[in-house]
């Protein structure tokens, strides 16, 4: 119900705003047409789309500088320009993302959200960051000073690195390595180290509880994540993210449809990896205050909070790339710049993450671990088996046409529905488990004590 009405509220725009939105969309489409057909002449592989141009530009800058300055200086200048570019992009994503998240969440919660600082409150994240930078950073007594100082920076590393192999357009991949999937898995498991360091070094029981939960959860959910990605690799036959997108583009089929079990497993497990609702137990506010970053203050806390959001956006990009067709949009990507397609899909996944955060309660740690080990991992393994057979058949066909792919898609969707229907656990619980889902209280007008209560309970 909340989902329905929250969505309704979100889209409940007045006629004026609707017209403004339509005008903005028309303007964007016109701008895209100009870019697509005048500037780059409809060529996807035109230099406009080549992210490596950034590298070329930096190399050019370095060559120019070399002529007038010592090599060491030009090296550092160009290095700083490159690093600044990447961090600037990430910073922009974080600032915009936190505004989007807060506004969306406010809409889900029938509030307005930040709307005072700048137009539509867009500068609110900047104001918050400035405020946090002015705050004193306290180091708790008994904390391990070095270990306490490292995590807020270390936690950024995986989130930055994970952007590397994401293909934004056919030729627009910063780090187009042929082991992209392995790289993503490896990089994303780094975060657990930083979080555990933070919890351990804080010398605080809440932080330690948060760190323990984080480690248990992230290590458990690495397995379903890897198994889900394994089935992607089995079908596409490549570990390269850009090739995975190309496969989806060539077959006109999103892997999320062909591999629904892997898709849902990946999505759910990743919410555990990045501490999002319903799996945000590592910093469950109502239980352990802020988990591993309870003791952090000022901009150090700000970095933790920001990177959670950054992780959510990276997850959106990875889900979009691996399961939702990446930059491809059934041929429309020649009209719309592919990087905008990917950005839109990333935004859609991010929207779902915010939606979940605004709707769902939280699991308990033991329930979450039980779910991973008792249900998710067996289902993932079985799914890998099924997908392996399908992949073997697809490989033996010369050009897998629409018939086998649609057949497998339908089969896999049916299997996913069956899994969700029969293999998932019933809501656990003690004595009261097994009652009907919509158990309403008994209504009575006759009062009494213990005996009356027994009578009521035995009544049908």
């Amino acid at each position, binding site marked *: 119900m909340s989902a329905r009405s929250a969505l309704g509220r979100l889209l409940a725009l007045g006629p004026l705003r609707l017209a403004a939105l339509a005008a903005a969309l028309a303007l964007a489409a016109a701008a895209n047409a100009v870019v697509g057909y005048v500037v780059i002449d409809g060529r996807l592989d035109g230099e406009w789309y080549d992210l490596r141009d950034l590298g070329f530009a930096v190399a050019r800058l370095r060559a120019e500088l070399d002529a007038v300055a010592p090599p060491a200086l030009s090296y550092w200048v160009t290095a700083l320009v490159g690093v600044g570019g990447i961090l600037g992009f990430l910073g922009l994503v974080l600032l915009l993302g936190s505004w989007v998240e807060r506004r969306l969440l406010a809409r889900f919660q029938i509030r307005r959200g930040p709307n005072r600082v700048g137009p539509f409150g867009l500068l609110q994240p900047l104001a918050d960051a400035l405020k946090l930078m002015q705050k004193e950073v306290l180091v708790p007594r008994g904390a391990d000073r070095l270990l306490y100082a490292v995590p807020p920076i270390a936690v950024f590393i995986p989130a930055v690195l994970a952007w590397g192999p994401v293909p934004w357009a056919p030729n627009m991949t910063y780090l187009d390595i042929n082991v992209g999937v392995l790289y993503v898995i490896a990089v994303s498991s780094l975060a657990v180290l930083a979080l555990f360091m933070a919890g351990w070094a804080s010398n605080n029981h809440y932080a330690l509880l948060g760190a323990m939960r984080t480690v248990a959860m992230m290590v458990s959910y690495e397995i379903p994540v890897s198994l889900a990605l394994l089935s992607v690799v089995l079908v596409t036959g490549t570990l390269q993210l850009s090739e995975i997108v190309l496969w989806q583009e060539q077959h006109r089929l999103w892997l999320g449809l062909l591999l629904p079990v892997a898709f849902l497993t990946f999505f759910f497990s990743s919410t555990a990896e990045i501490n999002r609702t319903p799996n945000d137990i590592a910093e469950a*506010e109502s239980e352990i205050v802020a988990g591993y970053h309870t003791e952090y203050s000022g901009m150090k806390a700000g970095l933790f909070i920001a990177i959670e959001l950054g992780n959510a956006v990276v997850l959106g990009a990875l889900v979009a790339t691996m399961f939702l067709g990446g930059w491809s949009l059934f041929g429309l990507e020649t009209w719309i710049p592919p990087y905008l397609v990917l950005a839109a899909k990333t935004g859609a996944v991010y929207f779902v993450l915010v939606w979940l955060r605004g709707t*769902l309660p939280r699991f308990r740690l033991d329930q979450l671990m039980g779910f991973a080990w008792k249900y998710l991992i067996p289902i993932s393994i079985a799914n890998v088996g099924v997908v392996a057979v399908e992949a073997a058949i697809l490989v033996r066909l010369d050009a897998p046409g629409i018939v086998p792919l649609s057949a497998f898609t339908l089969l896999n969707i049916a299997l996913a529905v069956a899994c969700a229907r029969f293999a998932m656990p019933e809501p656990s619980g*003690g004595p009261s488990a097994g009652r009907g889902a919509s158990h309403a209280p008994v*209504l*009575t007008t006759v009062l009494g004590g213990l005996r009356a209560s027994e009578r009521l309970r035995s009544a049908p």
Partner: protein
Amino acid sequence: MSEQAVEPGDAAAGEPYILNIGPQHPSTHGVFRLRVAMDGERIVDMDMIVGYLHRSMEKLAEERTYTQNIPFTDRADYLAAMSGNLGLCLAAERLAGVEVPERASALRVIFAELQRIASHAMGNGTLVSDAGAWQTPLLYMFRERERILDLFEMTCGARLTTNYMRIGGVAFDPPAEFFPKLDSLVDDLPSCVDEYVELLAENEIFLARTRGVGVISAGDAINGSLTGPQLRGSGVPWDLRKAEPYCGYERYDFEIPVGSAGDVYDRFMVRMEEVRQSTRIIRQALDALPPGPHKTEVPLALRPEPGEAYGRVEGPRGEVGFYLVADGGPAPYRFHLRAPSLINLSLLRSLAIGASLPDAVVTLGSLDIVVGEIDR
């Protein structure tokens, strides 16, 4: 609840460690403190430490007239000021033998039931927040609570500390624009309750978090002297509005919701159903609101004959009782508040020991305490 009875063990030897929850913690619902000995995520032992909000209310009351004490009851259970007002007024009226006009009784019923809805919205909302649904259900419930508080403000100028009931009636007759607004609110409320039940009562995660958690058996509930939804959630059909009707509750047609398992889920659902029943009561009271005065004139400094009286009402959290002893003077000789939160809270320790921290937090949320009346 002795100070620091729980001792930390040797952490290196794997013995329990101490986790200090509160007085500043998101889910202690005020300045309430738990000192918990934990073994990993499991609670081994627990101290409940109260008193951070102690204002010496009962002693202060002995220096003030009966009417001057009404604002204190606002600040005891600050989420259900109307119930506190009503309890004190009933006790004082019993002590002084004051008759209350028909219209005043009906208005008291309307406001007490509105207060129950507002309080249950808060109680259930924070319970769901404790279970991890980050404020969304709470803010949805606040939507209705806000309308109720607007009605309070319209009538008596205050939203929380209403100070509305008087000995012999109520302070003001509601203004003319009050009734159409109340009418539309009462029309809307059942569908709002349906919305919450649809959102939460069948949510798998919510069920997993609340079913079989914090189970209080009917016997334990009676032995623990629980009242209110905490008692009814355990399956004991007991409600002062039926057992000992006051303000003409015997005239209204309503039912008592009773849970079966006595877990957190049952207490949540009982509160939800009580909102529906309160809506029924308000509808009946509103339709049959008698004309006439809203108040009997009583002397400002009421001097009841020496004696004692106990007035109790079914508040949102259970039996709110006021025990007054008069010595013939204008102020009570002794003033005692039976605060349901304090008594309901007393079961938390036995429920929490052996449970995990998240379960204890949800159990505490389901007991729906207000620290204002625990410490008073």
